[in-house]
């Protein structure tokens, strides 16, 4: 059994070695002309403003949180799935209770809008919101784009 686990480990080491070797080869072959411009953070040609420490949306956390809970559930489901054929109905009922509990959690998060991400406000640009503008743009797109470019 240990042998089976040694294989991925040695593959990891070999993979790391492979990348390292290539990086060294690349380092030996490549030209190196460092300059201030190259070392600047890339921001589409603009001079970067501030650091990249932007405050992130809390939704990232909520998604990760729901994920962790369901990840744990998958870990519980795996040994169950392996023995399910042997144990039959009893195990099935037990697991459905377990899943049902967590589905309650998913339903709660769903209901409270935790699974929603910010949607673009498409209504603003719909036909209903500004009918004249919409007609104008649809009729003569080249005029609008021309203005934008000009």
């Amino acid at each position, binding site marked *: 059994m240990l042998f089976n686990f040694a294989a991925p480990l040695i593959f990891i080491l070999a993979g790391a070695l492979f990348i390292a070797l290539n990086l060294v080869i690349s380092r030996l072959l490549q030209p190196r002309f460092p300059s201030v411009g190259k070392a600047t953070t890339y921001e589409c040609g603009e001079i970067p403003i501030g650091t990249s420490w932007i405050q992130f949306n809390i939704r990232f*956390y909520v998604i990760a*949180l729901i994920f*962790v*809970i369901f990840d*744990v559930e998958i*870990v519980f489901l795996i040994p169950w799935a392996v023995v399910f054929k042997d144990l039959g109905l009893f195990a099935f009922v037990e697991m459905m209770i377990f899943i049902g509990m967590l589905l309650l959690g998913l339903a709660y998060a769903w209901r409270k809008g935790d699974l929603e991400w910010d949607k673009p406000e498409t209504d603003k640009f719909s036909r209903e919101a500004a009918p004249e503008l919409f007609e104008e743009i649809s009729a003569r797109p080249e005029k609008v784009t021309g203005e934008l470019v000009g």
Partner: protein
Amino acid sequence: MIQVGLHHFLILSAVLFSLGLLAVLTKKNAVTVLMGIELILNAANINFVAFARYTDNGIHGQVFAVFVIVTAAAGAAVALAIVLNIYKQLKTVNLDEADSLAR
């Protein structure tokens, strides 16, 4: 050198436990304190599994360790939510500064 046995695993676990405890005791940032707690739980898990292998020949220790990991996951989720709330309220997650109950 003596063959690796129960003692080796227990000592490894003790060292990891101490490092985790050190993180809990000395770190300022609440998230690193949480990391220390995770390390402590890992040390406990090594003990469970090592005892299961060397004194019991069974699998109960491993089942227990699975439950520990699960509890750790649930705990980390809630604890981080609390940390984020503290950050929201007090604009800091440093435990020595977050010492007031009122805003």
